């Protein structure tokens, strides 16, 4: 496909966009996995949202 004398600029522009978007998508996917894994670890250890400190600590 002949894009004329300035083809390099056209390719670099589209390439840059693709690169940035790919990086963004990759970050979002990876970050999502990290958070999901941490969440799974925590719930595997039996940590729940309602703090159980009140149940564990004896009333004085």
């Amino acid at each position, binding site marked *: 496909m002949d894009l*004329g004398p300035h083809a390099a600029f056209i390719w670099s522009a589209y390439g840059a966009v693709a690169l940035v978007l790919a990086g963004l998508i990759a970050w979002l996917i990876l970050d999502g996995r990290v958070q999901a894994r941490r969440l799974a670890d925590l719930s595997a250890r039996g940590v*729940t949202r309602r703090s159980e*400190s009140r149940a564990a600590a004896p009333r004085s």
Partner: protein
Amino acid sequence: MQTVTQRLANPTQFMDLSGRILPWLVGAAAAIIGYGLYLSFFVAPPDYQQGETVRIMYIHVPSAWLAMAAYTLIAISAFGLLVFRHPLADVSAKAAAPIGAAFTFIALVTGSLWGRPTWGTYWVWDARLTSVLILFFLYLGLIALRSSIEDETLAAKLTAILALVGIVMLPVIKFSVEWGNTLHQPASVLRLGGSTIDPSILKPLLVMALGFTVLFVALHVKAMRNEILRRRVKALQMAEVARAQAGQLAAAAE
């Protein structure tokens, strides 16, 4: 009977709903952008003045539009936080900032690469590029402010105020940049954008704009999901620490 917004306001329900529509959003974005690329390269004619390089417009203009739209979204989220205390408002604002900054960056890079063959230099201080550059600084400011305050709730509200200040000043800034630009007209009269009235040029532009918008929504939803997970992780970690401390106290008391 809950309204849509009420249902979306609950993080759990948001996760549920967003998890289901996200694949569709991604698919739609890919399809629309794919079609837009086809139109941009194979259907749209070269510009009579700029030649083929006008094709850069099909990614430059939509990213500039998205950059503005994302900041507006952040401002609306900020309003939702400060005025309505919407539970997901800050999640939305925090998630949108890096994505908006990325689109702003893309707009700057594509604008620069478009300007080089058109005007001979990698940067020209035309009104749109200058406005986008300042918008980039506004994004950086939001991100910098949030990361410099430890208390998450406080950071959310202060960043919201900054976003609202920014959205109010943005028209003033754009107006001033355009005013300054008419005074110092760049040498060439050629506008970065050529004629956008012709339908053969308008259609690829609008399709790409739509595709970018759907893509942004998909990215934003994904980022919001990540942020909700992050906050859950933090809450659980704090609960775990609290429980351990309480356990230690209990052991010491015996």
